[in-house]
């Protein structure tokens, strides 16, 4: 931003008006829930997002009036369920900018990454090969790689991040070598909110001939994802962070790679023919979808995607940016508090640490006031270690949050200072 721009009076929030925000909040029943006798202030959407009524209704309608399994019966009900399930796949694929034939339904981000590690990774990795990650990865983008490294003799390496909480691109590029086979990193950090320069990193990795997996768990809630624009080979997401049901997610796998990948789970629905002499498998996503899937999950997820499409995504993004900026400003008023990292591009989350109170104690004080935040290591122990902290408090915002809730958080943090001195 130029100096001239910076000194202009602040523009009126380009986000949502009060009335619009109130209407949007009314779409989410949990926004009028109570906890500990107080109205719920939900600042934990990075863990899981609350659900719009239309999503709940779609899943309920399916169970009440349309329920049958998919890819099974010849009867109409089963055919209808199959249609709904496959329409959901098309919607999810569309939301990712992917093709329907490159979108695999899985249980969530965690399973998606395990699938890639065990199917793709295990078939290509050899002793001495390297898997490059970053220091800001969630455990679910670390442990699956450690498992496959143990199985194949490959090595897991982590690229460092800066004090601002951004990837150190020079080191990242230097760590890419002829031995690097797989590069896996998050699109958005669940602790710092940092948005990584995915395309730039992907291009660096591709120049070295490595394949790239992007963990999209946090990004899907806040950004318009387009895997073709990001140029990555794999992209993993969870529906529950996208205002959909828990227990379902998706893996985008570039078609040319997907076709060469061996099955991950064996069972029904993934085979062409089974014989004790040997079995043959289906092509495309079906090869990775053994067993009866989470059908209502897919249908509910499609309904939440439909819901999101009724909103003006640009103004929602402006609203979220306003909330996060406001939170960042107001947090600086609180004594004994330090915000972790200062990335140039941040969405969703801000983590902080108080010198006089452990994150767990902060969490309890806030909980008594009806405020839900995450306190802990956020499944990012290497990142905690990087910042020399055992744990942090994280406040995360989604489209349904409002400035009043940030004010409630700040009041709660002042109380922490009163209690812990």
């Amino acid at each position, binding site marked *: 931003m130029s100096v001239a721009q910076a000194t202009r009076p602040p523009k009126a929030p380009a986000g949502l008006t009060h009335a619009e925000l109130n209407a949007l909040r009314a779409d989410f029943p949990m926004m009028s829930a109570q906890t500990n006798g107080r109205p719920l202030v939900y600042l934990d959407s990075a863990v899981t997002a609350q659900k719009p009524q239309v999503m709940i209704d779609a899943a309920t309608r399916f169970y009440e009036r349309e329920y049958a399994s998919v890819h099974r019966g010849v009867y109409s009900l089963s055919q209808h369920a199959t249609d709904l399930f496959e329409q959901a796949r098309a919607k999810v694929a569309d939301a990712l900018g992917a093709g329907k034939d490159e979108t695999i339904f899985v249980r969530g981000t965690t399973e998606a990454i395990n699938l890639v590690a065990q199917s793709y990774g295990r078939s290509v990795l050899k002793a001495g090969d390297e898997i490059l990650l970053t220091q800001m990865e969630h455990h679910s983008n670390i442990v699956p790689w450690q498992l496959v490294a143990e199985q194949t003799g490959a090595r897991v390496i982590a690229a460092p991040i800066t004090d601002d909480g951004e990837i150190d691109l020079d080191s990242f590029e230097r760590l890419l070598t002829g031995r690097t086979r797989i590069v896996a990193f998050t699109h958005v950090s669940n602790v710092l909110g940092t948005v990584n320069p995915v395309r730039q990193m992907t291009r660096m990795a591709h120049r070295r001939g490595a394949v790239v997996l992007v963990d999209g768990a946090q990004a899907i809630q806040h950004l318009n994802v387009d895997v073709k624009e990001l140029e990555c080979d794999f992209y993993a997401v969870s529906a529950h962070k996208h205002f959909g049901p828990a227990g379902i997610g998706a893996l985008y796998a570039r078609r040319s790679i997907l076709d060469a990948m061996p099955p991950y789970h064996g069972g029904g629905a993934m085979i062409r023919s089974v014989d004790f002499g040997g079995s043959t498998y289906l092509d495309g996503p079906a090869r990775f979808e053994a067993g009866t899937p989470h059908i209502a999950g897919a249908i509910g997820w499609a309904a939440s995607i439909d819901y999101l499409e009724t909103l003006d995504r640009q103004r929602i993004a402006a609203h979220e940016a306003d909330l996060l900026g406001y939170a960042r400003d107001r947090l600086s008023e609180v004594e004994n508090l330090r915000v972790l990292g200062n990335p140039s591009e941040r969405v969703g989350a801000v983590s902080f640490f108080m010198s006089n109170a*452990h994150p*767990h*104690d902060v969490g*309890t004080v806030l909980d*008594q006031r009806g405020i839900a935040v995450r306190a802990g*290591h956020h499944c990012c122990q290497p990142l905690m270690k990087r910042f020399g902290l*055992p744990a942090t408090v994280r406040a995360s915002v989604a489209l349904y949050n409002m400035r009043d809730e940030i004010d409630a958080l700040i009041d709660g943090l002042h109380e922490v200072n009163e209690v*812990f*001195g």
Partner: protein
Amino acid sequence: MSDLRELYQEVILDHNRRPRNFGELEPPCSEADGHNPLCGDQIRVYVRIVDGKIEKVMFQGSGCAISKASASMMTDALTGKSVQDAAKLFEGFQAMVTSDMDATVGDEMGKLAVFAGVREFPARIKCASLAWHTLQAALKGAHEMVSTE
């Protein structure tokens, strides 16, 4: 906010700020590590037994106010006690922090009775009992890691 003051009583806040018997105990002693995977609390408890009595007990580690104060007050309460009495106190402590809200707390708990407030905060019970579980392991001479999960 009365509930909050129930949990964070002055004594607890004081032990959190100035933990007693904090640091490493020189051998001979036995020790054990405790870990609460949910929040990352880590603790190491050292104990030296002489003639069936706890001569000295110390701890190290990082954790929330409840886990730190609980460890600190535990070391105060146990110094000089017989191993049998320590086991009884452990049982009493466990019973206290997991009992019904209105159950009365016996006099034998002494100063430790301040932890009765933890009963109203189910998410925090493990914080209060981590030090005690770790001490049990140290007394057994077990060197393996104790986990609250």
